[in-house]
């Protein structure tokens, strides 16, 4: 306060300052004196200081409690509003970006899932064709009893071809041999004992049971046609029973044949 710094009150206040008989008095003495022997003149100062303390406390309180915006200046409020709308804009942009990312991820996932299910179907079909997995489904069971031993490899091959022609998807003989593309039929001529029935190196025993999965009616009809398998069987006075079944279990499998020489042609 300039008015305090300048000695505009030249005469000493003896009552406040203490005994006037001490000509040189330090500020500290004066303060101690004022605290020890307060005078009436301090009352006014006390009132002022009380006002100051009161308003300071109130201000601190209201600042602590100021969670809302009353009392702010108009320009500050405008600034706050601008900041808020900018933040909202940013948040909206973020939302848009994230939604785009989400939808692209979703479509990505869908197409991946579609590709995976396609590939799985293909793998299943190929596995059944290659005979590497057990298969089940509707089909027929042909039981051939040949007491006179007249059934040869030719008739059997004929039966297999007719079944394949009729759309058999999986074929099994005697619950032991799975018939696939690589299946080889042998009548034992190479080994010097013709007349046997050897399928994939496994000699078949009677009765011959051929199980095939496919449309049962179509398969049965294919065997029954004129000059077909059943007629051939009858000619050699053997018996063949064809049963159409709702469910045929083909349990035997083949090892996965890895091609040693053939490689797929990359086709673009």
């Amino acid at each position, binding site marked *: 306060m300039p008015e305090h710094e300048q000695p505009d009150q030249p005469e000493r206040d003896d009552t406040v300052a203490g005994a006037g008989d001490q000509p040189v008095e330090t500020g500290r003495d004066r303060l101690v004196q004022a605290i020890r022997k*307060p005078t009436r003149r301090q009352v006014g100062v006390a009132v002022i200081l009380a006002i100051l303390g009161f308003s300071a406390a109130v201000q601190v309180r209201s600042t602590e409690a100021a969670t809302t915006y009353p009392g*702010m200046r108009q320009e500050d409020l405008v600034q706050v509003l601008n900041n808020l709308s900018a933040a909202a804009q940013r948040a909206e942009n973020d939302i848009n970006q994230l939604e785009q990312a989400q939808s692209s991820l979703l479509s990505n996932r869908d197409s991946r899932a579609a590709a995976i299910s396609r590939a799985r179907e293909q793998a299943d079909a190929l596995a059944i064709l290659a005979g590497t997995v057990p298969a089940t489904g509707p089909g027929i069971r042909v039981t051939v009893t040949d007491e006179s031993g007249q059934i040869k490899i030719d008739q059997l091959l004929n039966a297999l071809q007719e079944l394949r022609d009729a759309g058999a998807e999986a074929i099994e003989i005697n619950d032991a041999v799975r018939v696939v593309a690589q299946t080889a039929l042998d009548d034992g001529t190479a080994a010097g004992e013709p007349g046997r029935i050897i399928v994939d190196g496994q000699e078949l025993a009677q009765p011959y049971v051929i199980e095939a999965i496919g449309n049962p009616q179509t398969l049965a009809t294919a065997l029954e046609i004129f000059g077909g398998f059943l007629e051939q069987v009858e000619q050699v006075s053997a018996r063949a029973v064809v049963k159409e079944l709702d469910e045929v279990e083909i349990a035997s499998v083949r090892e996965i044949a890895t091609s040693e020489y053939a490689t797929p042609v990359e086709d673009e």
Partner: protein
Amino acid sequence: MIAALGLLIGLLAGLLLQPEVPLWLEPYLPIAVVAALDAVFGALRAFLDGIFDDKVFVVSFTSNVLIAALIVYLGDQLGVGGQLSTGVIVVLGIRIFSNVAAIRRHLFHA
């Protein structure tokens, strides 16, 4: 002693009563408090210098508070209220520091 008691009573009253600050006063109260603090430190310095007078103190206190509030009010009307209150706070802060430095020299001779 009475002065210190007055300050204490004022603080306690403010803390206990917790009055609502009227809306029109809210921008000016902080400035007024800082201006009042400046007046109080000036008064303490003058007291230590031996030139204290309570009438001068009351007048300077009142005028300090009023002028500070007036400046801020004027700034608000002119559209530079924020900057002007900052300016007032800076000026008052400088004065408080120099007054406290003088007080410190008196009390601690350092």
